[in-house]
């Protein structure tokens, strides 16, 4: 089942992806197909399989002592960024300056 146009645009916006008007129909169909594919899981009869109810969210998490370890070198970190200024990562302005 195809998903709605608006949902396609909404998801694109959340993912910061620009999409072309012409592609919307195609994406809407493809995304619907992905969901249908996953839906198939619901058809499997698991009533007899108790282990299947186990989730990764059972048990408890391991806690770490608060002891400092190694971090990455700054050069390494900055080399991963698309743009750098001095010792900072540079990105387009986030807040527009008020005209004073």
């Amino acid at each position: 089942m195809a998903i709605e146009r608006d949902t396609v645009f909404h998801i694109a916006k959340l993912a910061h992806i620009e999409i072309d008007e012409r592609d919307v129909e195609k994406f809407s169909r493809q995304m619907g197909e992905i969901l249908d594919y996953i839906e198939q899981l619901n058809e499997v009869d698991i009533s007899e399989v108790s282990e299947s109810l186990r989730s990764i969210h059972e048990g408890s998490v391991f806690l770490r002592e608060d002891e400092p370890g190694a971090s990455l070198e700054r050069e390494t970190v900055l080399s991963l960024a698309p743009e750098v200024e001095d010792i900072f990562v540079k990105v387009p302005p986030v807040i527009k300056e008020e005209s004073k």
Partner: protein
Amino acid sequence: MEFEAVIGLEVHAQLKTKTKMFCSCKTDFKDEPNTNTCPVCYGLPGALPVINKRAVEFAIKAGLAFNCKINLTSVFSRKNYFYPDLPKGYQITQYEIPICEGGEVKVDENRAFRLERIHLEEDAAKSMHKGNKTLIDFNRSGIPLIEIVSKPDMRSGKDAYDYLVQLRAILRYLDICDGNMEEGSLRCDANISVRPKGQKELGTKTELKNLNSFRFVQKAIDYEIKRQIEVIKSGGRIVQETRLYDDRKNETRPMRSKEEAHDYRYFPEPDLKPLVITEKEIEEIRKKMPELPLEKATRFVKEFGIKREDAHLLTLEKELADYFEEVAKLSGNPKTASALIQTELLRELNAEKKSVNECSLKTETLAKLIKLIDNKTISMKIAKDIFPEIYKTNKDPETLVKEKGLLQITDETAIEEVCKKVLEANPKQVETYKNGKEGLFGFFVGQVMRETRGKANPQIVNKILKKLLEE
């Protein structure tokens, strides 16, 4: 129509751990920018978060101090959004099941503001906005935070101020957060709406950000309440938005950030199993809980007989409370200790922007000064006069008093002589006084004090002057 404001606060408190929430990168804010990061900080493929035990302990401490219910099982979730200060594209936080629920912040004996919850999460990176660009330091991303969310119980800027003062004091007593708003280790956002008094439904709220001192929080809230009421009275409608406070103009205005959709698509963090705490662990932490500011204030009132307001002020900072307690015990005069600390000592410290830890005046020295007043060696006035010097040098007060020749004159014959001299020198005033203008009494006392350079014991001066004037 009368309006009522409804205010809720969200406080983010950076926890004083050595390492980040989910990795062992250091948290020292003095370190060079972009030197404390790792694959976990950036969410690089294959990197796995591991929870910091101390951060959990600190959150439990806060929960106990604020009387929250501590959830033995709590769950971390991903809050998804794109923003440059969030390299992973999501923040790991707690959503459906936070570590603490309910509770309250008591601001004094019979006033408290209820809490909704306290949850653990990680901080975002620090952005510096510079005109046409934004620069990012990722050292802060991943530092443990607790977010303390109040219920919308506050009604004014003053309520918010009182709430924050007590909240900060408690976090500092617990030694889990620096509580420094200027450095950003404590941050506060306020949700504000107004409604006609008596109405149940809430009005449309705005969110205030950029509040970097408690006084600004108070002023910004009061401004925003006034603004909203004016908008409604003039037939307008409140727009749900984020507003920034400008302290120079004392006004709030809409934050014009890039348009973004708010759809966080929370889901349980797949890389972390639930956080499970045992009753035993909670009890261990409970045993180590310190005496909290209000408890201390109550004890000071009982033990030292000082006024409630004084006890409150003296206990907001643990170091100051300890200092007072020592001076009170050493001098045996808590009231004078309280008075001198609140007026003289705090004035000197504030002038130098120092905390009581950095104070060179030792508690023993201040106690000695108080004893000199009590045994009538010097007057209170002289004590205040020499205070700045003692504060700076920590010099033995008795030695200083002797060196400066400031010993109080308690010898009645000597004082009587001066009094007589003063009265003889001012026959006109004496006559006016005797004719009923009793206000002149202060004049005579002043003259005697001047003659003795403030050293005459005021009680004796009063007594003798009265006697002489009645003759």
